[in-house]
């Protein structure tokens, strides 16, 4: 018995209305969740965070989106809806100082849809629009996978990231399903399996527009990933939900009769796309990814510090007992960088200031934080002397405990050798 399959026309309708629901969700989140401005600002974008402006923009998104969804070939309304959503989101991000990435999915898919509509003539604009909406959604997940590859390495899935993320995002009590999810994710095999599957699914997402099998397999895994995150996390503001992403994965990739190049009628294109165009675009994407400077990135919206370009040894993840992201006293290690004659340990204090310590066996003028023959001193900083002294003592203690009775310089050399 064959499974019921949507006709292309039905699939177009499902996809258009799903896009509309996704815009409405994203616009509502943009407009309703309070903004916490990082600083007083008087820019135009900031002015658009006024409640009246936000309400107006939400109305534009919803009404123009409704017009777009209710019939084929209303791509101009889609552009209006997209423009309003971009304005709403960018003004919110500008005020908050960070971008909320769970709001990007619907707009990205709409960009794909509009590209399809713009390329097609005749009555089948939705076929290519739906296909390219999925392509844009696939690109979103591919980028997430590439980011993990770039910043976490190919073994990202084997790290503690997945389990740590779930455990740390339980701002409230873990009960019922949430408790089960936390219990499962903190088990090492399950945590690894979840990490590996989610990373591989993201990296394989680019296949979704080209293969029905890939579309079903990858979208199922990604929906499961979002579901686990939604159930297993509860910050002080509620679950971490990706409703638009989940809805669009179902509507564009999972429902029978949808994704896969084979399911799309040959569209009547306004212009032919020679093979050189996708090849050039893919090469440009690969080039932009490869050339992306590893030392500049954003996380949780904030901009991480830029590593000094004059550090020939480069960044380290771990040096003996010191590990990036670890606490030392009331400070957190932000960077470990190997310089020719020292290792630089940059720490962020609880007050927000940064202080860098140098550990070296080639320097003279030893001071109070030294560990044996290893000099340990701090660079100029705006932090208070008391705070610097406190973290200096804590750093000294961590290193001294790891050195134990052995020669400190021999230990430092061994740590540096192992870290490379």
């Amino acid at each position, binding site marked *: 018995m064959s499974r019921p399959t949507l006709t292309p026309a039905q699939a177009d309708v499902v996809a258009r209305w799903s896009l509309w629901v996704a815009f409405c969700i994203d616009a509502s989140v943009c407009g309703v969740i309070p903004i*916490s401005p990082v600083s007083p600002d008087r820019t135009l974008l900031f002015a658009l965070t006024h409640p009246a402006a936000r309400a107006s923009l939400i109305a534009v998104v919803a009404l123009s989106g409704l017009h777009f969804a209710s019939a084929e070939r209303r791509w101009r309304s889609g552009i209006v809806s997209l423009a309003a959503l*971009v304005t709403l989101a960018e003004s919110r*991000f500008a005020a908050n100082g960070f*971008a909320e*990435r769970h709001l*990007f999915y619907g*707009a990205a898919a*709409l960009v*794909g849809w509009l590209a399809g509509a713009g390329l097609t003539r005749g009555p089948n604009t939705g076929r*290519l629009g739906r296909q*390219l909406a999925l*392509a*844009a959604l696939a*690109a979103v*997940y*591919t*980028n997430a996978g590439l*980011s*993990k590859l770039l910043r976490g*390495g190919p073994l990202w899935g084997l790290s*503690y990231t997945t*389990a*740590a*993320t779930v*455990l*740390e995002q339980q*701002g*409230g009590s873990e009960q019922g399903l949430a408790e089960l999810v936390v*219990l499962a994710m*903190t*088990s090492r095999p399950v945590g690894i399996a979840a990490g590996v599957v989610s990373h591989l699914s993201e990296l394989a997402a680019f296949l979704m*527009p080209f293969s029905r099998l890939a579309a079903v397999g990858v979208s199922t895994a990604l929906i499961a990933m979002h579901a686990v995150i939604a159930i297993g996390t*509860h910050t*002080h*503001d509620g679950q971490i939900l990706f409703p638009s992403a989940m809805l669009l994965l179902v509507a564009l990739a999972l429902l029978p009769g949808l994704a896969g*190049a084979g399911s*799309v009628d040959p*569209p009547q*294109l306004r212009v032919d*796309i*020679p*093979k050189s*165009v*996708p090849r050039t*675009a*893919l090469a440009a*994407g690969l080039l*932009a*990814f490869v050339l992306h400077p590893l030392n500049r*990135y*954003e*996380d*949780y919206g*904030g901009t991480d510090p830029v590593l000094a370009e004059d550090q020939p040894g480069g960044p380290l993840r771990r040096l003996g*007992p010191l590990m990036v*992201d670890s*606490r030392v*006293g*009331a400070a957190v290690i932000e960077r470990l960088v190997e310089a020719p004659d020292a290792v630089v340990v940059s720490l962020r204090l609880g007050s927000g200031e940064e202080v860098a310590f140098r550990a070296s066996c080639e320097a003279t003028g030893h001071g109070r934080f030294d560990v044996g023959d290893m000099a340990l001193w701090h660079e100029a900083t705006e932090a208070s002397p008391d705070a610097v002294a406190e973290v200096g003592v804590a750093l000294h203690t961590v290193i001294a*405990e790891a050195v134990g009775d052995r020669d400190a310089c021999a230990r430092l050399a061994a740590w540096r050798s192992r870290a490379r």
Partner: protein
Amino acid sequence: MPSILQSASGRASATVIGVYVAVAWTVGNLFPFSTFSMYARARWNSLVERTVVVDETGRAYAASDFVVNDCPDRSEWHECAAIPGTAAGIPYIEQRLVQRLAEHRADAVGEPSEPIRIVRRTWDLANGGALVEECEVARCRGRR
């Protein structure tokens, strides 16, 4: 690659993917383009910590579960000595906790109130997520 570029829709799809990836990795976050770098850094520290509000029995609550509290400001919290190797955690989670407590803070909690504690819990993921330490940073009262 050659087969996916045979159809017009395949070529268009590959173009959209290439353009999105290229733009995102060039401009960073420009709605709706992004590299989606959240959680991309691999965490190899097995020790993780979280600051939570608990009642007398140790049951944890979201800060917003308490409609009123008289908990001290973040600057007055006891600073727990960190266990070496503990991951610093996700900054915004504790920021939200502090914000939500501040939003519901009052000089008089009123009745019925209960004693609550703010604690920093540390778990070891290498040991099945076992609780390693619970350090109290503040004591106060709250009303749900």
